[in-house]
């Protein structure tokens, strides 16, 4: 157990090894480890973000679905209403048209009745004149009573 120059040389060797470790061994390994830690942290954060985004997207999709359903219901209701309206309108139109046709028919009937009446009246007048003529031929001179006959004819028209 004798202290000698070995101590100093060992201390020198020690300091060289420490310097070497500080300079060449520790920093690259520390860098690698820290880089990996960062990568892992980033990965975890990305995963978390993805999860959150998925949650958001599913929420949004359900919202969209709900809205679409609601809209479909609305459209259906509107369509039903519109259909009812169309039916109502058609009914109305049909009624108006029917009435119009009815009125036309009535007018035609009236017209025809009028025509028939007229023809009948003329025929009656003719018959009356003929009858009167027959009666008067015996007693009345046609030339004398022509005015009278004409006025009767006129009246019967």
């Amino acid at each position, binding site marked *: 157990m004798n202290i000698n120059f*070995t101590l100093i040389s060992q201390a020198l060797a020690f300091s060289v090894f*420490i310097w*070497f*470790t500080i300079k060449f061994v*520790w*920093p690259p390994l520390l860098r*690698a480890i820290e880089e990996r830690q960062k990568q892992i942290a980033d990965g975890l954060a990305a995963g978390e973000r993805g999860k959150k985004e998925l949650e958001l997207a599913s929420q949004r999709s359900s919202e969209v679905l709900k809205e679409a359903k609601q809209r479909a219901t609305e459209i259906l209701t509107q369509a039903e209403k519109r259909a009812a309206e169309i039916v109502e309108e058609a009914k109305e139109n049909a009624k108006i048209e029917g009435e119009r046709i009815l009125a036309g028919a009535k007018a035609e009937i009236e017209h025809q009745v009028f025509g028939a009446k007229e023809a009948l009246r003329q025929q009656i007048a003719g018959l009356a004149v003929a009858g009167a003529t027959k009666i008067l031929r015996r007693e009345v001179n046609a030339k004398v009573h022509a005015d009278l006959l004409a006025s009767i004819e006129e009246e019967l028209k």
Partner: protein
Amino acid sequence: MASDLELTPTSYITHHLTNLTVSVSDGPFWILHIDTLVMSIILGVLGMGFLWLIVRRATPGVPTKRQAFVELLMEFIDAQVKNTFHGNRHAFVAPAALTIFVWVLLLNTMDLLPIDIMAWIYEHVFGLHNWRSVPTTDVNTTFALALSIWLLMIFFNIKVKGMGGWMHELFCTPFGKNPILWPLNLLFNMIEYVSKPLSHSLRLFGNIYAGEIIFLLLGMWAATGVSGSFFSMILGAGWAIFHILIVTLQAFIFMMLAVVYLSMAHESH
């Protein structure tokens, strides 16, 4: 084995505990233990070189098994330092702790090499008569480490707190600011500053040295006959297995104490 000497217990142990020395200058201090120095430098270069080779190609992606091993080691030490040291540990303390742990562990592990086989190899392959494998059984190594830490401790004390802050701490802690207490405080701190490197280095030295001595004693027992060989084999195996724990534990304790001392230097009371 010392083939040219008569084999006695004393010569056996002395042989195994003698360093290969070189005098670099006159005087008893200027002696260099070549074996200690060469072994520790080889092991340090191996350990740090191994780390460097793997760390050079470190990727942040999926690590290779070797990189994972080095990362495990680094994160283990980093966690210990983090618990003790509150500052920018990556600048000095954590890498220094890694160096200490790896280096001291490798130096201690040499203790597990079979001592007589290694002596035979050193003698007959490398022609080295005296060659001790375990640098931490040389008190110079442990003192070198402990005193380096001690000097760093003083350096960081002055760097962090300033000369005035450090002096204030030396005179005013732990008992109080009263001038009457100054001598007592200083004495207390002096004792602490002396005992820190002593306990730090001698703990490591004592444990590993004692381990080596036990291996030597078992080796001597093995030389006494068949039953001695048998028992020393079993006990040697047991001691070696137990020593794996001691070797690791002492390296860890040495590192932890270094970290604690450096942390204390950074924090004011």
